[in-house]
């Protein structure tokens, strides 16, 4: 009987071996995947097992934490001025995950980031509780407040950039929400969450309109067309008359492109055309330069590409396949052209920064709990859409717009301000309410410290330039003042 007995013993050994192989597979090979699975509640528990680090603006945290009881989660996020900062901070919710900076820098805020390993080890040895790192933003609290208050109860968004570095100074979006109300995992939080969804609230308060919504840029896009005309050599003297008919028959069609109201656009110079916002001049310019020149210039400014600031910014759109008449329409910001407010702020900032476009960013540095800097963002050049000479020509044109054109509402005494208004038609046959745009920059002796783009949905007035100048320009002016008076 011993021979089969030995075989049975070997068989039992194989059974145990199979078990050992299996547990090695599950706990070693698959371990990471299982431990970080989205349905593994431990991920969320660990996320809130210690106070999250703070998101800091101007040296002051805009976030905080409280302890909660009666659930798996020990700490809950709180927000100061939640609605104002929500487009920047996003939310960190025990039940509904994270978004924006809370999401992108989640690992650092929870203290799980590898770069905090050393700090964690020291804390472990000294018996201190694990702590999250802080995220120091580039935002300017006064500018943000000016933007948020300026938008008030209107629907819209503001993006402001320091053109010299690309640092984002303001990012406001209305209507907004208070992320504190959805930070926990109680039934109240759940009700709040459901009510904030687009399904329940057509205003979609959780949408960050500054970076996640693209609008037809309307006349503000004429800045890009003007830049293309200067860069391509199509126009060298901005005060020399162009040969432009009024109205301008769109090439290959029987449709006439017209101007809003009775403005002097026939054969206008580029400066005049921008000052009065002539559709005919810029439409013809775009069609004459052709698709490739326009696409190249738009992409130099950042169109057709997602940006990471480090929060993802939706790609703005300038079609790459169009017929000449479509190019003409696109060149005045209509047809399929679409831009985020941040994208238009980038256009203004490139012009203000003498032609150099800096990569926009909103995180200045990551700071460990012991206040040592773990990572510092250094300004980076993104592209050079304009030569310095051409940029200065465009600056002087934009300043004309503010001095005596459609953007007089943005004037700031004693400061050079350049701007461009826009009212974009929305929907088929203008069915939707138009969007009022204003993009501008302010200039001081040390270059331009701020470029800003404002969009207000529901610009209900009829005339193109009055609504952009009337609704959006005052907000841009307040934001620029906030930065300048700092």
């Amino acid at each position, binding site marked *: 009987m011993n021979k089969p*007995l030995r075989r049975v013993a070997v068989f039992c050994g194989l059974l145990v071996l199979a*078990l050992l192989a299996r547990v090695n597979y599950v706990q070693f090979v698959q*371990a990471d995947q299982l431990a970080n699975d989205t349905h593994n509640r431990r991920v969320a528990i660990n996320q809130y097992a210690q106070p999250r680090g703070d998101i800091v603006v101007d040296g002051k945290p805009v976030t905080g934490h409280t302890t909660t009881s009666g659930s798996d989660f020990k700490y809950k996020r709180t927000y100061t001025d939640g609605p104002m900062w929500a487009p920047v901070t996003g939310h960190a919710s025990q039940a509904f995950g994270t978004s924006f900076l809370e999401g992108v820098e989640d690992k650092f805020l929870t203290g799980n980031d590898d770069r905090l390993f050393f700090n964690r080890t020291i804390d472990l040895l000294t018996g201190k509780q694990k702590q999250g790192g802080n995220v120091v933003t580039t935002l300017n609290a006064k500018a943000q407040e000016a933007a948020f208050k300026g938008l008030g109860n209107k629907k819209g968004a503001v993006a402001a950039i320091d053109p010299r570095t690309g640092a984002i100074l303001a990012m406001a979006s209305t209507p907004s929400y208070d992320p504190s109300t959805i930070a926990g995992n109680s039934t109240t939080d759940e009700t709040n969450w459901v009510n904030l969804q687009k399904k329940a609230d057509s205003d979609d308060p959780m949408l960050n309109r500054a970076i996640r919504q693209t609008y037809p840029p309307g006349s503000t896009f004429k800045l890009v067309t003007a830049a293309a005309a200067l860069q391509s050599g199509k126009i060298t003297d901005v005060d020399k008359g162009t040969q432009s008919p009024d109205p301008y028959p769109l090439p290959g069609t029987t449709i006439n492109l017209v101007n809003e109201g009775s403005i002097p656009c026939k054969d206008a110079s580029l400066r005049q055309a921008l000052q009065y916002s002539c559709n005919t001049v810029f439409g013809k310019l775009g069609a004459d330069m052709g698709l490739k020149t326009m696409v190249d210039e738009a992409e130099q400014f950042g169109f057709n590409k997602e940006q990471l600031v480090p929060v993802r910014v939706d790609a703005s759109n300038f079609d790459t396949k169009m017929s000449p008449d479509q190019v003409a329409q696109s060149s005045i910001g209509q047809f399929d052209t679409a831009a985020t407010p941040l994208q238009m702020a980038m256009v203004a900032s490139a012009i203000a920064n003498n032609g150099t476009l800096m990569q926009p960013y909103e995180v200045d540095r990551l700071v460990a709990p012991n206040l040592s800097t773990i990572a510092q963002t250094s300004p980076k050049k993104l592209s050079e859409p304009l030569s310095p000479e051409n940029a200065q020509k465009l600056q002087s044109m934009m300043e004309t717009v503010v001095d005596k054109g459609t953007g007089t509402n943005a004037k700031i005494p004693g400061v050079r301000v350049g701007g461009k208004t826009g009212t974009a038609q929305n929907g088929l046959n203008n069915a939707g309410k138009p969007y009022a745009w204003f993009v501008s920059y302010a200039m001081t002796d040390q270059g331009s410290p701020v470029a800003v783009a404002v969009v207000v949905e529901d610009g209900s007035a009829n005339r193109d330039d009055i609504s952009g100048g009337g609704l959006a320009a005052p907000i841009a002016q307040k934001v620029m003042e906030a930065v300048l008076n700092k």
Partner: protein
Amino acid sequence: MSASNTTTITSIGAPNRRNTELALLVFAVAIPVFAYINVGLAKNDSVPAGLLGYGVGLGVLAGGAHLLVRKFAPYADPLMLPIATLLNGLGLVLIWRLDQEPSITTPALGGPMAPKQLMWSAVGLALFVIVLIFLKDHRILQRYTYISMFTAMVLLVLPIFFPGVNGAKIWITLPGIGSLQPGEFAKIVITVFFAGYLMVKRDALALASRRFMGLYLPRGRDLGPILVIWLMSMLILVFETDLGTSLLFFGLFVIMLYVATERTSWIVFGLLLSGAGAAVVGTSEPHVKIRVDNWLHPLKLAANGGVTETAQSQYAFGSGGIFGSGLGQGYSRLIGGIAPKSDYILSTVGEELGLAGLMAVLLLYALLIERGMRTALAARDPFGKLLAVGLSGAFALQVFVVAGGVTGLIPLTGMTMPFLAQGGSSVIANWALVAILLRISDTARRPAPSPAPSPDAEATQVVRSQ
């Protein structure tokens, strides 16, 4: 060696190794005590209040058992008692640790279970001692072959008349005592029956067969009992929806048949029959079907969008990683219900002690099984051999089926991890199982009685070279 005993057969057998057992027992008690302190520190930042009672209690129980082994089974295997004590002690700590989780220790789920488990462990150890004292020789069990068969049948059939729990009818409820899992006891009783029956019939089964396609086909009348057992295991599967027990009994019978007859054809038959049965039941029985489905897609969400127990246990294993989160610092309670204390207790081991701890626990089981197999090899009588291989084989199958099910190697079945999992019947039955194995090993390792002094010893004296 005295001059009066100069035969070439020495009467000196293996050393009895009782001191080894004592030394190992010290570890087997110390490790759970440290684990207990560890849980207390992790959960409440203080040494648990019941430490002295638990430590002294476990020590006294293990020490007492050791003294009785010393007295009644002096040559018994020295590893089995320490391993069983260690596993039982660790199980108690794990259950006590899970008792600290309010969400799975609600009154509706039976409240804290560690005290009851401690009581059942004591009862188990008492049974262990009783078996050692009263079962002077395992061959006595041979007399009860047919009584065992009858008892096993009754034990297996009983749960059909009681309501099912969590889809499996493996419980009987006795008023005043609580619920019992007769399958655990049936496991031992049926092994006694198989051993007795096969010892008598082994020649008929092995030799009276025709050769067909390279296999020895047994005669119909010898095939009968196999078909009966197969049918019975299928009936258990169908009526009690207990995949584990039916697999266990059938596997046990095949192993013992193979060892008794030394015919490979029995294994082929066994595999064919169990394969056929599993295929039919696996596709038709909804309860089993769900388990197979859970096994194939462990991370699939439940119908209501929630995370299934299977997935939760996988997450627990994955989150434990190599070294584990530390005792008391895991979240295996997320598995829900009393599952982490019984069905899924290995998930707690995996999460809190990590891959290292889980492998250590599995190796403890492997060691216990190996000692059982060794006992079978060393046993001198066929009944003892069959009984020992049957008991350790059943133990091995149970460990494999449960651990394999929990870790996702095979579909999950409703059996308990011996010694580790919460459950009175299981602890008691497994202590009895270890006691019988110990008794067989004692008989096997006991030195042969000294031959009577031979009158002509002088004439056959071996002349040594130096």
